């Protein structure tokens, strides 16, 4: 494996914090308000965004989840032309479900509870919980775990 090949398949998604009281569905359609909100989040949690964001970004279309019907915005960075999807933090990676609904099943996985058992208690099927669990392994472990706004360039934090 060469060193310049990323091990992080899901690194083109930025998990965007959505605060209490924010109407996401309205916000995502309002270009101006969305930019304002995004800029505010970048200032508040710079470690969640690529450092190249500082050079500016432009909106780059939408993605709609077939499963959840949820719309998310994409952005393109001026610095390197890379496009990222802005996934709201209340949905799981690949928009497989709402974070709140999946959280309990993943909590049980910490104790090695079988997927069948989680499905029996929380619904869905075993494969759903298997895929939800596997998706946690896609982001960079180091990048997701270590958040040092000063010592580490936030640019490289890939989610």
């Amino acid at each position: 494996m060469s060193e310049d090949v990323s091990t992080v398949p899901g690194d083109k998604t930025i998990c965007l914090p959505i605060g209490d009281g924010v109407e996401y569905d309205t916000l995502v359609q309002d270009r101006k308000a969305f930019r304002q909100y995004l800029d505010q989040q970048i200032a508040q949690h710079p470690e969640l965004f690529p450092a190249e964001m500082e050079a500016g970004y432009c909106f780059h279309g939408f993605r709609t989840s077939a499963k959840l019907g949820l719309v998310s915005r994409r952005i393109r960075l001026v610095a390197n032309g890379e496009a990222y999807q802005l996934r709201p933090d209340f949905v799981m990676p690949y928009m497989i479900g709402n974070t709140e609904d999946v959280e309990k099943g993943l909590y049980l996985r910490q104790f090695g509870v079988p997927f069948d058992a989680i499905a029996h208690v929380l619904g869905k099927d075993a494969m759903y919980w298997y895929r939800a669990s596997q998706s946690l392994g896609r982001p960079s472990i180091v990048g997701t775990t270590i958040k040092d706004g000063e010592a580490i360039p936030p640019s490289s934090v890939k989610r």
Partner: protein
Amino acid sequence: MGRPFPPHLLSDEKHTWWQGERVYVATTVGEGCILGAQLSVGAGSEALQEAYRVFAQEARELDSHYSPQTLNTDGWEATQNAWRGLFAGVNLILCFLHSVLAIGQRCRLQGELWQSLQDKLWNIYHAPDAAEFIERLRHLQAWAIGQNLPESVMTKILNLSVKASHFTLAYQFPEAHRTSNMLDRLMNYQDRVLFAMQYFHGYQDSANLTLRAMAMLWNFHPYGRRSQSNATDTVSPFEELNGFYYLSDDNEGSG
């Protein structure tokens, strides 16, 4: 906001099974978090280096000049070679606990001897500086020669001199890990989950995703209520490492 990248790491291989074959999970730990977990089908230097490279690569995505100051390992040479290959300047510290346990295994049936040896070994460990460490080690060896100890125990005690420089290196880095306890606690977690899932039977890629997901679940798992109310006011290993968290039950982060 956060704290610097952990300068003192630990690593070891968790032995497990993939399609009935023994394989090794190259695990890297720092500040109570699992920072690397990658399956390696071999336990040689080359195979382990490939497995540990994933951690190195992810760390360098954060800081291109990153190199840990120290790394605590057991005595497995391939692990040490793998890390030397990835981080040229890393100081490799040998786990003292492994040496104590190795001696303990060899005098399992001699309770009194083991008790006496254990006290002496930990007395060496608690030496205030490197010179005193060597001095206490010499005393132990002199004592052992007069005790008519079993040959296997004697060999292990005499071998401590060979490893002494790897133990005393820790005195140059007071914050470094001298034993692998932190790693062992986290490997215990890996062990329980791997046993519960009856190890790996699918593709190697999915095994790796499972291992990485386990690491994430550990790093972000909420401590039990008793742990939270005991010594610390932190809620998870992530917060312990970073000094903040994003959200709690009442949706208010700290830090």
